[in-house]
């Protein structure tokens, strides 16, 4: 992994409170797992930024090494790795995701 990819990721997860590495874009996800995480964040009214790993082979490989996590999507909140689609889904369903966002001071809509 080149230094530039590591630096790019470090900068993105530091500057963006909620940063999602995914396949495709929030508007046009190109993978069902990525789409599900976008759907959850959107549903919760969480402001987030995305990076499309399909546009950049170095990022696609680099994010796996950076996170020590072999698959995409990958969600970071306040610079901390939260997990992929399964973990985000489980945390959403159990209410832990809302709790964590509140604890970290990330705005989101209260659960219905």
């Amino acid at each position: 992994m080149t230094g530039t990819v590591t630096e790019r990721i470090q900068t993105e997860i530091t500057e963006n409170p909620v940063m999602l590495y995914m396949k495709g874009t929030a508007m046009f996800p190109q993978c069902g797992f990525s789409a599900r995480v976008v759907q959850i964040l959107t549903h919760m009214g969480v402001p987030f930024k995305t990076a499309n790993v399909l546009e950049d082979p170095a990022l696609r490989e680099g994010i796996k090494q950076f996170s020590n996590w072999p698959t995409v999507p990958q969600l970071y909140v306040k610079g901390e790795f939260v997990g992929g689609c399964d973990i985000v889904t489980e945390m959403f369903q159990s209410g832990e995701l809302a709790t964590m966002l509140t604890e970290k001071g990330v705005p989101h809509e209260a659960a219905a």
Partner: protein
Amino acid sequence: MTSRADRIEALLRQHFTPAVLRVADDSHRHAGHAGARPGGQTHYSVLLVSDAFRGQARVARSRAVHALLDGEFAGGLHALALTLRTPEEHAALPESAA
């Protein structure tokens, strides 16, 4: 030749002595999608219930499984949906089983 599902199941069974273990090959549902291969064997989902996860956070549980299946990821495993629970958690949440 054993299937990837068989290998995944054998590795998980050996390492986690699971109370419940289900490995499903979902590759057919992803045919034609990026990461899919003509022969399939790319997309799997696993339900694994084990005492080994007690006291372990979600990311740590998944990393333990990923590490065990490192060779499969290197050999074309593309997506692995993981539901990893302790027996107590599983007893409380049976309906969302993978």
